[in-house]
């Protein structure tokens, strides 16, 4: 890794403008009372003092993506015969996501194992992923709903980032995480970091220490399986859930999608859209049967997928980056941390009871 650089705070806008010349730069910006990632135009300052409501997943995995267009063409000789012309749509532009928190960028590691595995590569995902770079901002202080350290991460985890910034007095220490990040750093606006690099490390350490001790969730995978059939448990923990889909759409690691055609006369488009396991239609079968008929089944799917089924398939990696968005922004404050711990406790109790029998 190359030496760290320093960007004085007043130069931030210039750096982003410079990057905007070569990339589409998505930066957190205020919209009403909310912060969302939007193209940086230079009209407004990026908002860096709180995490955006939406993680930057739109950059790589858009809410709606056109996969292909098709057109039915009648054979002039034999009008009963119809041919279909298909053209793939793949628009991926060189993008820099600026100012996401490390957790938001790390979310894509969960996607990569699914969409860009040795066995299968989703060309749409792979193309956008390859063209998207992340300049993230280490957290100087964790928030009330943050629990990145529960899932093996931390406030300055750079594993999903290409560049990691650390806010220091009057500016940012800029560290390249990989070669792609290094390339972004050859800007005349950056100065050598000097002693600020040590200062940045102090800030990073302090943020990590500010998090309350993490409980041991290594049993989550097996515990969630152990309580899988325990519907009374799932009904209890999902009682207040209103079964919207906010938690999954806001989540940097939720990747479920649905594919449907939008037909207009002789032509149409095939679209891929976000799906979510909180919705009734998620596993609705053509017969009308739904294997996940109630919100208890659906919440079980959400928690189970992140902390049990996914880790079982991907070498123990948890499909949750601990960003806390689903807790923070849930209309009724359903808390995934609480549910995971409750499942671990419930499974332990069942184990104990059966040992006594």
């Amino acid at each position, binding site marked *: 890794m190359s030496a760290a650089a320093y960007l004085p705070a007043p130069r931030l806008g210039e750096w982003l403008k410079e990057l905007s010349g070569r990339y589409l730069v998505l930066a957190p910006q205020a*919209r*009403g*009372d*909310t912060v*969302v990632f939007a193209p940086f135009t230079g009209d407004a300052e990026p908002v860096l*003092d*709180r*995490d955006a*409501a*939406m993680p930057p997943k739109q950059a790589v995995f*858009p*809410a*709606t993506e056109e996969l292909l267009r098709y057109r039915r063409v009648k054979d002039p000789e034999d009008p009963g015969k119809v041919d279909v012309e298909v053209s793939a749509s793949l628009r991926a532009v060189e993008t820099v996501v600026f100012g996401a928190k490390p957790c938001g960028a790390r979310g894509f590691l969960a996607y990569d194992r699914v969409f860009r595995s040795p066995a299968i590569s989703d060309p749409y995902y792979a193309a956008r992923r390859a063209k998207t770079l992340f300049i993230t901002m280490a957290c100087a*202080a964790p*928030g*009330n*709903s*943050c629990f990145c350290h529960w899932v093996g991460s931390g406030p300055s985890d750079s594993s999903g980032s290409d560049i990691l910034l650390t806010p220091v007095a009057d500016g940012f220490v800029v560290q390249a995480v990989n070669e792609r990040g290094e390339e972004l750093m050859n800007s005349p606006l950056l100065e050598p970091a000097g002693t600020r690099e040590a200062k940045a490390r102090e800030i990073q350490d302090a943020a990590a220490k500010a998090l309350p001790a993490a409980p041991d969730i290594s049993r989550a995978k097996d515990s969630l399986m152990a309580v899988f059939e325990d519907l009374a448990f799932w009904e*209890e923990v999902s*009682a*207040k859930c*209103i*079964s*919207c*889909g*906010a938690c*999954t*759409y*806001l989540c940097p690691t939720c990747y479920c999608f649905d594919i*449907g055609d*939008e037909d207009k006369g002789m032509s149409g488009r095939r*679209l891929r*859209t*976000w799906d*979510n396991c909180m*919705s*009734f*239609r998620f596993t609705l079968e053509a017969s009308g049967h739904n294997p996940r008929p109630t919100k208890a089944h659906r919440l079980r799917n959400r928690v189970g997928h992140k902390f049990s089924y996914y880790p079982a398939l991907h070498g123990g990696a948890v499909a949750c980056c601990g960003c*806390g968005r689903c*807790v*923070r*922004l849930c*209309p*009724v*404050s*359903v*808390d995934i*941390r*609480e549910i995971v711990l409750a499942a671990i406790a419930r499974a332990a109790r069942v184990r104990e009871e059966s040992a006594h029998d």
Partner: protein
Amino acid sequence: MSALEMLKDKIREALPSLEFVIGWEQGFDALHATPFFMRTAEDVEKLVFGPLCVHNLSTYLPSFRGRKVGIVLKGCDSRGAIELMQEKLVERENVVIFGLPCSGVADLAKLGRFAGDLDRVLAVTWDDETFVLTTPAGEVRVPREAALADKCLTCQFPNALEADHFAGEPLPPATGPDMGSDRGGEELAALEAMAPADLMAYWAEAMERCIRCYACRNACPMCVCRDHCIAHRRDLQWLGQDDTPREKLMFQLIHTLHLAGRCTECGECQRACPVGIPILALRRKMNRVIRELFDYQAGLDLQAVPPLFTFQVEEANIEERKW
């Protein structure tokens, strides 16, 4: 005895004949209360009530049809329960209502304008005049008027309108700007003054950030189609799948129209929206129209028939023949 203690006593007494009573407990941090299903006397100990108990719990009622449950309701929330009962979506005899007087709930979005990052608020206290938020940067004081939800500033019904048990002293109806035809205040006035193209541009900008999560729909007590919502029908595709403000606004307009004469203006739709889209204005507008046309407000009277549930050959305020 405080109203909360009185309420706890009443709930403990009633619990044996009920599956559970829905109230609130402290949530994951100081700022959040969270809906709470009390099943045992020990649970009741954890019940809280205050300006952070923002949720309209009547949202849960339709899913418990035919079951005996209890629910704690503030004045405005009781209108949701009443409207559901008027529409025969909830059976009055199966619900035990614990009514409360409410002197207003906080709008967290408004508090955020003072405190910055709400996720860093460490403690919250309040009195009749001020909310005090403790943040890492120090104390932030927010005047009550600036912290309360809009609906509370013009609240007509601070006491539950229908209750089997009522805990505490009933409050006098709040005074303030007229809640009648002016309800909606400056926000609605500004929108009504806009030329159609500007209005469309306003909504296009606001809906841009909508993620189509439908929290607005699921938080709404009167949205009862739930799993069969028009927004999820693929066979007919009333809504396209495109991620465009146009499709997203289309859903809001459907919601607004499906709530005509039924919306109690509880504000849950807007409160639930994770990206803070000011969608309540659409409902307020519709409510104003309903009041003008039918002289009707939803959820006030168990016996009343909502205007769109009935038909009159000659409506008093609709001058059909003069078209």
